């Protein structure tokens, strides 16, 4: 308690005094556990689809599906692209190429930042977490951007170009394009990233509870 405050303590925050650690282990462990859990959930979300579009039409009794992962598209992409060419839409693989290429590095970065809060016992932890908290919003915003870009820029030379008005497919829920009923759904990966955001916020709350008294207690002017 009597150690002098060093410059970098503003970033990494105060050490936990030994007696206090022995007495209240849980108080300090809890935010760390929550943050590790959040980082873990966010990380494994890359193995799950984030978003799925299902198309139904009479000649597709089982429907057509496109599942979006952070770094790839799976499902009946060729078939959907084939259908889209009639209305002049570009192949789906041409969308968000940069995002998909960088996504894994980005998420690993977010995970490291979240994990970093374990070693940062000051309010600076909040800044480390902000990108991860906002990440699901960023994903949806980017998705919307590309859907809009594709849906509003149809090739006018396509066979059915004058039968279809430019459109923006919904991010969630049902839509209708020609004979197709489209159902967009959020998938487990996206929910995991949202769960990670919520966990981070809860973790920050306990983080503040754990460390604020230390900072207040050791502030130079107190």
């Amino acid at each position, binding site marked *: 308690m009597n150690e002098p405050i060093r410059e970098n303590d503003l970033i990494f925050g105060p050490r936990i005094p030994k007696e206090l650690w022995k007495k209240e282990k*849980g108080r300090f462990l809890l935010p760390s556990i929550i943050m590790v859990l959040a980082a873990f*959930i966010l990380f494994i979300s890359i193995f799950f689809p984030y978003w*799925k579009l299902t198309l139904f039409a009479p000649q597709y*009794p089982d*429907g057509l599906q496109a599942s979006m992962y952070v770094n790839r598209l799976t499902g009946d992409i060729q078939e959907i692209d*084939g259908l889209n060419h009639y209305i002049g839409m570009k192949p789906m693989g041409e969308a968000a190429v940069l995002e998909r290429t960088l996504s894994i590095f980005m998420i690993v970065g977010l995970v490291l930042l979240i994990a970093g809060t374990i070693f940062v016992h000051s309010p600076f932890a909040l800044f480390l977490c902000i990108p991860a908290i906002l990440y699901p919003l960023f994903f949806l915003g980017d998705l919307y951007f590309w859907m809009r870009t594709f849906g509003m820029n149809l090739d006018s030379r396509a*066979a059915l170009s004058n039968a279809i008005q430019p459109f923006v497919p919904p991010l969630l829920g049902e839509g209708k394009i020609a004979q197709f009923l489209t159902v967009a759904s959020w998938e487990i990966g996206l929910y995991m990233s949202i*769960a990670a955001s919520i*966990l981070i916020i809860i973790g920050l709350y306990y983080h503040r509870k754990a460390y604020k008294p230390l900072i207040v207690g050791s502030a130079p002017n107190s």
Partner: protein
Amino acid sequence: MFIRRVMGFSSLVVLLIAGLFIVSCQNNSANGDKKTGSNNETSSVEQNGNMAAGAEQIAKDRNLSPKDVEAALKTYTPSGIYDDYLMFSSGGHSGQVFVIGVPSMRLLKVIAAFTPEPWQGFGYGSEESAKLLKDGDMKSGTKLRWADTHHPALTETNGEYDGQYLFINDKANARVALIDLRDFETKQIIKTPNIISDHGSTFVTPNSEYVIQSSQYATPLPFQEYATMDEYQEKFRGVMALHKFDREKGRIVAEGSFQMELPPYWQDLCDAGKKVSEGWIFCNSINTELATGGIEQGLPPFEAGVSQRDMDYMHVIDLKKAAEVAKQPGKTKEISGVKVISLETSISEGLLYFIPEPKSPHGVDVAPGGEYLVVAGKLDTHATIYSFDKIQKAIKDKNFEGNDVYGVPILTYNDVVAAQLEIGLGPLHTQFDNEGNAYTSVFIESTLAKWKLGPPYNEGEEAWTLTEKIPVQYNIGHTVCAEGDTTSPDGKYCVALNKWSIDRFTAVGPLLPQNFQLIDVSGEKMQLLYDMPIGIGEPHYVQMIKADKLNPWFVYPEVGFNPGTMSVDPDAAKSGGEKIVRSDGKVEVWMTAIRSHFNPEHITVNQGDEVILHITNVERARDATHGFAIEGYNINLSLEPGEANTVKFIADQPGVFPFYCSEFCSALHLEMMGYLLVEPDNT
């Protein structure tokens, strides 16, 4: 206090995650796979009540008896519901194979086997089919473009259908075709050397090591040799051809294939031994009289000549031993490139025995356990049942009642017969069920007879008794029961494969369809359920396999797949790699097809150029087949999703020839076309 909070919090997390899983799982339950069973989407007590009243009215209006209604209910298969069994039927003169669902009796497909078939693009320009058909041509170059398919044989594993391949013979020209049941397409046609006529084929051994093919109408050996009818006994011969099947390659292979010389007795149907009799082959014969016909010279016609003796000879062949002998140097002679075991060698090595059988028999059918051989013939009212054990004992004890004119030992008839059962007029072919019953077609009296096998299937009084007959319409040839020639028959259904239909269907001119009659054999009494006309050719034998044993592809596994090699074709056109390459006198095009265009759409060539088109259907969707037809050039291909095929022709006609997609593939199908521009050669 703290602990409680942690607990509360962690359970919140658990709930949250569980919730996510539930949300994500729900999405998958929407599209359940419907295959068999009834469609019970709309069933409530009230609706059922209404339905019954409505159904009664319909039955009354249509004059249907309660039995009719029952039959309708047993066969009606609603839209989208699949059949329990598939029949693979020989296509008779069509030279093809029919695929028919049971119990719906719906024709699902006609598989092109020996005869050009436009829908499948078989024999209309595709290199793959051109090669297949050429392999089946006469060595002299004469093209064979019809076939008389008789007996399909599904490949077996341990005596049970495995659903992998199907063989079919051509009685008219002694050929065998091999169909791969992954894509239901013919992969191989063999013109069997040395013989020109076969009836006893195709049959497979219990693990499909060999495809059995016996010649029918005897000719000089090899058949291209010339001899006069006076030289019949001396120069004419029958042949047992044993085609080695290489399952890995999915082909009949020359290595290990061999033939056996037989007397010119007109070998007829055969069957491979199974279980206890595995490794043996049994074949009937008709003309042990060595009749040579000659009605125009006042000699007895064949129909009388071959029916003179009361007995003909069942051929009993030790296949296992014969295969060993065929491998030994000096024990075979090579005729037309095939190893042939001579009759003398067969006799001296103990490969061939004869057993007297009532004259002019049709089927020799091996019981499920392999213990019995059932022989029946149109000129005897009995089924004669031989015991494999007794045959083995007679061979071991050299219990011969003599030798035929060629020296083949004849087993003593009385010592190898297990039973004789009076069946009716003209019994022909026998199938089996899972309860020890046999079903024999009875041609002359037009019935299907059900009877009980002896021990171990049925003991005491019950053994070898006729239990029931059901009339069929008319002139039943073969019959087929569900997996009825395997080591584990299913019972349930038999189908009477009738030659004549006379008054069964609305008149369609003097050439009448044949009549397949579905019979329910699961109950106390046999019940006729359904008549299916076959107006494409006269089928002979049929096999019925449980549908779930088949595992066909929905689309070709990869884009650029060559069905001929069953692998990706290195020469296949790829999306983005479309091109036209010209060289002297030759134009080679790599073309793709996708809904709804070909690429390229313009192909300009000079008159007289050789044109080679490599076309790939790059679709991955089920049923997205494209055709490729060039008008005026007699060319049509069928390109199923993923398939790559090649067409070669000489552009000998100048002018502008549209080419188009001949399968209605999409809303813009009409627009899926292009032009072949053949610049006239003005020199």
